[in-house]
């Protein structure tokens, strides 16, 4: 029997409606007890005085690039990045090489995750073979192998008839569909949000309606079929309005996330042709950012994610139009949430943690993301008084492409336990 006692921290466990100074006793990888002043008889004691003790964060959208592009990221470097950010469970997108559109790739990712053994990695499969938007993938086998959802992330199934069949088939096997919402013909080579900034920069741009129409299409098909649908990285006022009205109609099979950059930053980050600010969905104009914040406040949004997308330097050192899309985020997502949502008073710390722990866990039907007694001891301990400047060179991720580079953020993970094992102590990963 091994035991760890976390003493005197501010325990914020939104699932159990808890926000108070308390102790947590971990025995054999499980949370044994959460109560103030537990007697110190443990193998190890962590002093959490002045710190926030939260459930390990759950991120529904990361790109670990393994197999295939291990020059950009591996399951190990991605896991280390996650630990730095207090993320203990990451859902891996299937756009690896080869694509995770079959059980063999899912099994490979799970094997590599187990060998690495730093965090929980849950793979997803593709909706369609090769994410090509045409033939359905073998969703039952993907699920049996351990895939928690299917998604053609980065691509949206353009043909509504195929998407309808995919939803019907996913429902047959009680599989979650995650949709990246984009209408290719409206994006039409656009590389940033269409608006005043794109006009000043003279860049081909993608209009918000490209996302709005796709969100509407996905919602209507999910309402028709009854399939479980999770909408990835929403970024427009139109998207969140459509989600809000679907939920108001009683569509309980639909959930939605926002990636942290989309409530924090606007398309003005692209000025000067800053390729770190190039991503899809693109950073939107301030009016969309404001609408996203409102949707987070009013409960339309169920989860905050990173869409962690590491790239090698040469892929960003290109003309903006040709540069790779995406930003790394695992090491900063808590700090971005805290700095842009909690500090300005939009939501409480507990609400922010809920959006990054038990709420996303529930979407993939995982029992993680809580500090309930008997739950796996995934615990992240944050210093919410620590202000720091993002230096990409200090990131654990192989991708140094961070849109928050040189920005000042508040809040940093200090200690992290995964399955009861202390993996990071005093911001240092132990192995």
């Amino acid at each position, binding site marked *: 029997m091994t035991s760890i006692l976390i003493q005197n921290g501010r325990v914020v466990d939104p699932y159990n409606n808890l926000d108070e100074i308390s102790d947590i006793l971990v025995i054999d990888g499980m949370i044994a007890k959460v109560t103030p002043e537990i007697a110190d008889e443990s193998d190890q004691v962590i002093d959490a005085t002045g710190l926030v003790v939260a459930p390990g964060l759950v991120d529904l959208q990361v790109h670990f690039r393994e197999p295939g592009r291990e020059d950009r990221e591996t399951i190990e470097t991605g896991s280390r990045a996650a630990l730095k950010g207090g993320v203990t469970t990451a859902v891996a997108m299937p756009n690896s090489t080869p694509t995770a559109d079959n059980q063999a790739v899912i099994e490979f990712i799970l094997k590599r995750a187990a060998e690495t053994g730093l965090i929980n990695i849950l793979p997803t499969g593709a909706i369609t073979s090769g994410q090509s938007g045409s033939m359905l993938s073998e969703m039952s086998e993907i699920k049996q192998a351990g895939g928690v959802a299917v998604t053609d992330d980065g691509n949206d199934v353009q043909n509504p008839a195929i998407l309808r069949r995919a939803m019907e088939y996913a429902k047959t096997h009680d599989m979650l569909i995650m949709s990246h919402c984009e209408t290719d013909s409206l994006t039409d080579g656009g590389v940033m949000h*269409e608006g*005043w900034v794109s*006009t000043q*920069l*003279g*860049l081909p741009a993608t*209009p918000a309606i490209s996302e709005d129409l796709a969100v509407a299409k996905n919602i209507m098909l999910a309402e028709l079929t009854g399939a479980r649908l999770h909408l990835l990285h929403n970024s427009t006022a139109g998207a969140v309005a459509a989600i809000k009205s679907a939920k108001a109609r009683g569509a309980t099979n639909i959930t939605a996330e926002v990636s942290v950059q989309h409530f924090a930053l606007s398309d003005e980050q692209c000025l*000067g042709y800053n390729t770190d600010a190039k991503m899809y969905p693109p950073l939107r104009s301030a009016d969309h950012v404001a609408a996203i914040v409102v949707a987070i406040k009013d409960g339309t949004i169920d989860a905050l994610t990173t869409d962690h997308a590491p790239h090698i330097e*040469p892929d960003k050192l290109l*003309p903006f139009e040709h540069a790779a899309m995406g930003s790394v985020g695992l090491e900063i997502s808590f700090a971005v949430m805290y700095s842009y949502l909690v500090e300005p008073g939009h939501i409480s710390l507990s609400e922010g943690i809920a959006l990054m722990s038990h709420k996303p866990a529930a979407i993939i039907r995982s029992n993680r993301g809580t500090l309930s007694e008997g739950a796996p001891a995934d615990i992240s301990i944050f210093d919410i008084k620590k202000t720091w400047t993002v230096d990409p060179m200090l990131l654990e991720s192989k991708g140094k492409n961070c849109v928050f580079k040189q920005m000042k953020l508040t809040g940093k993970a200090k200690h992290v336990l995964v399955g009861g094992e202390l993996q990071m102590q005093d911001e240092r990963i132990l192995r």
Partner: protein
Amino acid sequence: MGDAIEKSLRDIRGKRDVSFFDLYSIDQVSDTDLGLIFEIARGFRSAKTAKLTLCKGNTQVNCFFEPSTRTQASFDLSAKHLGMDTTNVGGGSSSAKKGESFIDTVETLDAYNARTLVIRSSEAGVAEIAARHVAASVLNAGDGWHEHPTQGLLDALTMLDCIQADTLAGKTVLIVGDVVHSRVFGSLVRVLIRLQATIRIAAPITLLPAEVEQFGVTLFTDVEKALVGTDFVYTLRVQEERGAKGFIPTLREYSKTFGISEWRLDLAAKDAILMHPGPVIRDIDVHSALVSRHPQSRILTQVENGMAIRKALLWLLCERFDGKTKTFERI
């Protein structure tokens, strides 16, 4: 004779310098810079093709990642008239085709100790980014749909000379055509704002960029209404492929609805000036009779002013009196 011309140019310039080291956007050019550039350009225009030595000993690399004939010839001849050595890279022979990053390409060219690097690219922002990484002064010869600053300057000079004034205050400029795909527009609108012109745009809505009115322009979908009272009519080229991509049905219909004919030009103010950045597609953008010979056309004057503007910039960038040097960072 060259000595006398150089002396007169030096008299015009005095010890004045421009505030920038690279030119990738009109936004970098201060009001004082504008006046200085125009004064010197007028001097160069009078000098015609005289072989001068103002920039002797300096090298220029014309780096045209996107092919160009007119702009490249204008920059090249301008440099040669000032005594510079020039060479051309780009197009089919460029290293970009072999997978080299454009930043590595321009850093290599910079290592030839070129004094000026003229860059044309089919993507926006290439000159601006290149400028951060080289010691040479970068001149943007057109980047994607963004800007073409020497074109904007030559257009402004052409307009000012038509009215013998220092600003365009009280004057109305109508820009007609494909605005969204036009780097010429990007620089023109910025320089016109600086010169206090009233700016109108007439185009099918499909050819307008998002929120273009934020520049402070008035939009028209009826070119004939837009022409009324206009002092300058600036037509932009509409490319054949825009039809294929669904921006307009046909060039034929575009010509009927937005093409500038003699009859339409008469709707503008008396003696209104007609301009076009070239290449003109006769009878589509502008009716053939208006292009070169019509008394109101300044299309060839624009070309001549282009050389003068480029010479002024090259001299201002090659020879500085303020002792300031450019900062840059290698990657």
